[in-house]
């Protein structure tokens, strides 16, 4: 059954509100947008250098979301501007480097007190299937997403995804970041925060033609005083049930993910530090999962412990927030990464990352990010610089 058949119903549910005129439904709607300027430079010790500048953002319109039935549509665009080299390598545009304009959201929603159901093109935020907003155009997914919060302290998510759009494409296809999904991906997620200072979440992704994945995460806080606390977390990712499209050695995901990650950190009022660790005992990577970026503790801008060939990663992260001034507020961050692989086919590397982010106000920000990758083997070292200015409205 083709998804297009549902499209005419995109705005029709709001009409079922007998006491509510359609004009009001649209007039009470809301528009949100973002304008983003993105400059990206990739320096490598070879001809693989790439740089590009992009201007774009998104425009989103939702009918009155206070109504039980509502609809929403969002377009993202990323347009190349100015000088560039190998701009297709920056993943800011289409795979061939052309400007990219996509329909990232177009769904009808049904809402009751404790339940929300959305059907259409969706942006998701789950550990192995998410939007990845590190460029201008995110990933998005076509299917249905149900969220229920009827059970106290518990949030249940049930998603069925039949097609996926990559962040460098304007087409929804049966191709995930890890390979073809065939009959689709069904996800069940449960989050529970009923125990004081403890958050639990677990997801199961069932993709019979690709591979299925179980994830679990626990986060615990020890609150010292009003400003200070100690945070601890543990994650586990395990895949299996490889289907006909599974590629075990795929760095983005395969049927042999077996990753444990730990985190311990100290969070003060304006400063935080954490030590993160992960070990993937499997051959498969987990860089992008089914789409987006897999949410593993050992994640920096480029460097991460999510690769294939059994990486073991230590990551030290620290961030400092400056006091609010006349011109807004800044924060700076520094991250050191050490990755060593337990399989000779992988790449050992060390990396350091730093950023400066300034918020002029709640809507306007400037974000400068830099990461240096020092590979220990034959792979070419690389430096990545991103300058991102964003305005939300």
């Amino acid at each position: 059954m083709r998804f297009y058949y549902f499209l005419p119903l995109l705005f029709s549910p709001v009409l079922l509100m007998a006491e509510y005129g359609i004009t009001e439904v649209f007039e009470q709607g809301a528009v949100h947008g973002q304008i983003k300027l993105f400059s990206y430079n990739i320096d490598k010790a070879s001809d693989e250098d790439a740089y590009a500048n992009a201007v774009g953002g998104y425009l989103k319109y939702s009918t009155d979301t206070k109504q039980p039935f509502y609809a929403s549509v969002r377009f993202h665009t990323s347009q190349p501007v100015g000088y560039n080299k190998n701009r297709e390598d920056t993943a800011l545009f289409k795979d061939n480097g052309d400007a990219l304009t996509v329909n990232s959201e177009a769904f009808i929603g049904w809402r009751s007190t404790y339940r929300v159901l959305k059907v259409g093109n969706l942006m998701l935020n789950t550990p192995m299937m998410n939007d990845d907003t590190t460029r201008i155009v995110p990933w998005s997914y076509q299917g249905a997403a149900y969220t229920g919060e009827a059970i106290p302290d518990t949030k249940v998510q049930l998603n069925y995804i039949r097609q996926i759009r990559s962040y460098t494409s304007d087409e929804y296809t049966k191709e995930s970041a890890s390979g073809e999904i065939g009959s689709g991906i069904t996800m069940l997620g449960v989050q529970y925060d009923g125990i004081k200072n403890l958050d639990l979440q677990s997801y199961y992704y069932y993709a019979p033609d690709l591979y299925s994945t179980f994830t679990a995460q626990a986060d615990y806080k020890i609150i010292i005083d009003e400003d200070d606390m100690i945070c601890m977390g543990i994650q586990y990712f395990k895949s299996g049930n490889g289907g006909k499209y599974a590629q075990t050695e795929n760095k983005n995901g395969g049927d042999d993910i077996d990753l444990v990650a730990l985190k311990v950190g100290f969070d003060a009022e304006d400063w935080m530090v954490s030590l993160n660790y992960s070990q993937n005992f499997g051959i498969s990577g987990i860089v992008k999962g089914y789409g987006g970026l897999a949410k593993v503790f050992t994640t920096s801008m480029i460097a991460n412990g999510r690769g294939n060939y059994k990486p073991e990663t230590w990551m030290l992260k620290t961030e400092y927030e400056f006091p609010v001034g006349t011109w807004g507020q800044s924060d700076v961050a520094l991250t050191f990464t050490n990755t060593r692989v337990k399989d000779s086919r992988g790449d050992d590397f060390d990396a350091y990352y730093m950023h400066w982010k300034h918020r002029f106000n709640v809507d306007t920000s400037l974000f400068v990010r830099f990461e240096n990758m020092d590979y220990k083997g034959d792979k070419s070292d690389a430096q990545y610089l991103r300058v991102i200015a964003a305005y939300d409205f």
Partner: protein
Amino acid sequence: MKNRHYTTSAIAALILLGSQAFAAENEVNIEEPVVIETVADAFKNGKVKGLLRYGGQHRDSNYHVLQDAPGDVSNEKVQAYSAIGGYLGYETAPLHNFSIGATFYTSNPFIGSNADDRKGLGGLYEADGGQDSYHVLGEAFLKYQNDEHRVVVGRQEMPDYRFISLSNIRFTPFTHEGATYENTSIEGLKVNAAYITGQKDRNGIEFQDMVRSARVKTGCGAVDTSGQCINTGSKQTIRGDYDPSNFDASGNYAGEDKEMPMLGAIYSQDNFSVEAWNYYVNDFANTVYLYGKYNFNPSADWKFALAAQYSNQQDVGDGVGGNVDTWFYGLKAEAASSNGMLFFLNYNEVSYNEDSYDGGTMFVRWGTPQMFNSFQVQDSELAGTKSIGAGAQFDLGVLGILDSTVIRFRYADYDLPDDLNMIDARQDRAEATFDLRYSFTKTSGFGIFTQMDGLSIQFRIAYDSFENDYDYAAYKAIHGYDFNSVTDDFVDARIYIDYVF
């Protein structure tokens, strides 16, 4: 059965939408003036515009197969699309008279048959060989506007520039890229100037230069270094000297991008208006367009108007499209009654010149063809066309017959050069059309293409009949052309269900 169910759902939804649309019609909406002092104010008080559209078109273009054709030549050709989409745009409130805006346009296959072999109408994305979705940033502009001056830079809709316009007759309109300036400082006079660098086709996702947008082709595919057709069985449309290296193996223009500076002036008084426009595409062609209309009211119940138009197109500069030397003119008489009836009679003639591109066919693909007899399918722009057309439009709401409904009937006869010795001979043809527009928000006072908020339905159908009483074998022998079929009668039907907010 499934399709029927989905269609029923959609129709039910739209009927509900329509019934609800009446609800707020009579409410008074008093807005207090908002003072815009900051960029944040400008964004917070901007305006959103949106269109949710279902659009479908079906054209049954059966061929007339020639007697000497091989047995396997099909006489069937059906083109169709069925799509849903529209646009979503936002423009900030003016801050010191400056604003910015952007609009996304989208079209997506929906129900019906959108098979690859039915493409060609341009309602969906066809560049990849099929009929697929497309999404495009069609507008992205910076605007300055005060009482007398209006400057827009970037991608924009240009609805009122005659040869440059939206031509919104498929799913999404043409939009253009460049800079426009409009001046209204002299009472009665409006001056439009523009420098246009690109045009987005109706179903395109990229902006192309103004020569590609004019759809310049060799007509015969690849050409050799001397500019002669490699496939001699097809007619070459380019005449005179030109640089064959500007054309690719398919015969499409592949040379440097060419821009279009243009200038127009409209002078209006109570009972007449005159317009003069000049469109200059660098190294390609210059187009002059003149238009005048005189209105007179012999009685309180009737208003009459006479209009005339003339255009001349000549090659300029390097002449990347070869020789262009053509013209057309038109005459129009119109009578409108106070009770919602409109009658009109048109005449157009286009130059026939075998030394000009395609025998004198006018380049008109930058917008809606301006010929008075540009109807639903036929545009009266082809070389040597002499056309006479007539029509009547009835506002059934004003007439007291049926509220919220406007209908229009048109008929035109297109007499084309069809002597066997003519290189650019074509079949004579005629077109009869019927249009209907129904609004859920207005009871009367609108036309077939009037922009209206709320829900409306537009239905259009045309019957095109083609003369086929020709000696095609002799024509092929004289000119060395090789073809097995020609166009036969067809029906073109279109429906649009629009909700504008």
